[in-house]
């Protein structure tokens, strides 16, 4: 297992594997997205209270889940990079940041659009909205630090360290903003208990969540491949690759 992982960390093998995996992830993302959107936007019944406007949930909730999930991925890869000095981990963490920031932004914007008809206002200083906004700032800070440092190796280590510091502080920020009176509804999906949401609405949501995850992997692989080629542009295998094409 370890040996296999070690092999995977070699840029050339990772590049080839990513090239082979990309079509698979691409098609499965497309399939699930179409199915999830059809199920969510057309098949699922309208909500008895919110009417059709609840359907934005099929974008909003998966995006919000992804915004947090991707940060954990970044922190995990940063730790791997700092401990074992695996370049691939640095690349994966750094290319994930922009995707994570985009998902955070999407979650915020869809939340605002939903809030206008439901709450009567685009923005409320509610706990979840605020912590999502702060998460966006943290993503932007992370990317800002990465692009401000010119030396690539210094930037990699500084970003990894920042990601780990932030992952300690993010739960504190999250729980400190919960102190306010929370307007955002509680979580409706739960693994342990029966969900408060009907199955006909839940299935498209879960399909969308999986589709978003696959989409993330797809984009990360594509971006990582490009970044890898750029960083390894002076090595023999990249030169050979270019000559073959």
């Amino acid at each position, binding site marked *: 297992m370890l040996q296999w992982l070690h092999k995977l960390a070699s840029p050339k093998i990772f590049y080839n594997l990513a090239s082979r995996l990309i079509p698979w992830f691409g098609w499965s993302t497309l399939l699930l997205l179409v199915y999830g959107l059809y199920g969510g936007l057309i098949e699922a019944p309208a909500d008895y209270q919110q009417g059709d406007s609840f359907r934005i949930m099929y974008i909003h909730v998966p995006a919000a889940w992804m915004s947090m999930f991707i940060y954990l991925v970044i922190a995990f890869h940063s730790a791997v990079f700092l401990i074992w000095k695996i370049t691939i981990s640095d690349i994966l963490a750094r290319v994930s940041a922009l995707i994570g920031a985009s998902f955070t932004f999407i979650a915020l914007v869809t939340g605002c659009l939903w809030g206008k008809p439901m709450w009567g206002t685009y923005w409320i200083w509610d706990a979840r909205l605020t912590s999502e906004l702060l998460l966006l*700032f943290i993503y932007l800070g992370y990317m*800002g*630090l990465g692009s401000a440092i010119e030396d690539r190796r210094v930037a990699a280590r500084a970003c990894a360290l920042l990601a*780990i510091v932030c992952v300690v502080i993010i739960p504190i*920020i999250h729980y400190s903003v919960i102190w306010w009176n929370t307007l955002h509804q509680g979580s409706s999906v739960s693994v342990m208990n029966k969900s408060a949401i009907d199955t006909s609405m839940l299935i498209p949501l879960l399909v969308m969540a999986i589709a978003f995850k696959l989409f993330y992997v797809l984009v990360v692989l594509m971006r990582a491949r490009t970044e890898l080629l750029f960083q390894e542009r002076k090595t023999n295998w990249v030169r050979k690759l270019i000559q073959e094409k």
Partner: protein
Amino acid sequence: MNAFTALLKRDLLLAYRNRGELANPMLFFIIVVSLFPLAVSPDPSILEGMAAGVIWVAALLSTLLSIERIFRSDFDDGTLEQILLCPQPLPILMLAKVSAHWLVTGLPLIIVTPLLALLLHLPEGTLGILMLTLLLGTPVLSLVGAIGVALTVGLRRGGMLLTLLILPLYTPVLIFGANAVQAATMGLDVTGQIYLMSGLLVLSLTLAPLAIGSALRVSVS
């Protein structure tokens, strides 16, 4: 321990020799606070409600402004490299640097707070709570801010970036600090907030020096 006191003494002495600069963060603090009545309203009943929040935000900005200097001159003249080469444990030395910074910039803020509380009509009886939260909170600001400075010290223009990096991380302190004073104004119990702020202080006292140390090793190489 000897290294800790030696470095602390050196930093305090350096600050004392530059007495002129010493007052700047404090003046900034006072000026920012006095802008609010001009901009919002001089009405005592409105000021009363925002006093704690305004003082906390001003303290946060003042720390942000002064924290950048914590490693700057040492980085420029090479002292920082010598500190990194010391055989003493780096986190202890970092703790000394941050303590010196807090004594020079954080403590004066707390000392002038009663004056500002008077200017902003802070409700009577809550001044003690405000000063206690500042006492617990400003060291956290210095410790967390120093991590950001350590990451950006090698950059020529790190100022704006530093703001982006550390302001989001300051929010828990701000929320608990301002919240405690507001709760005290309404006559509620504030033990919870005080305990949480003490928790933050202990957490950052133990973990931040390690992070500052490793961040400096990355930036200075």
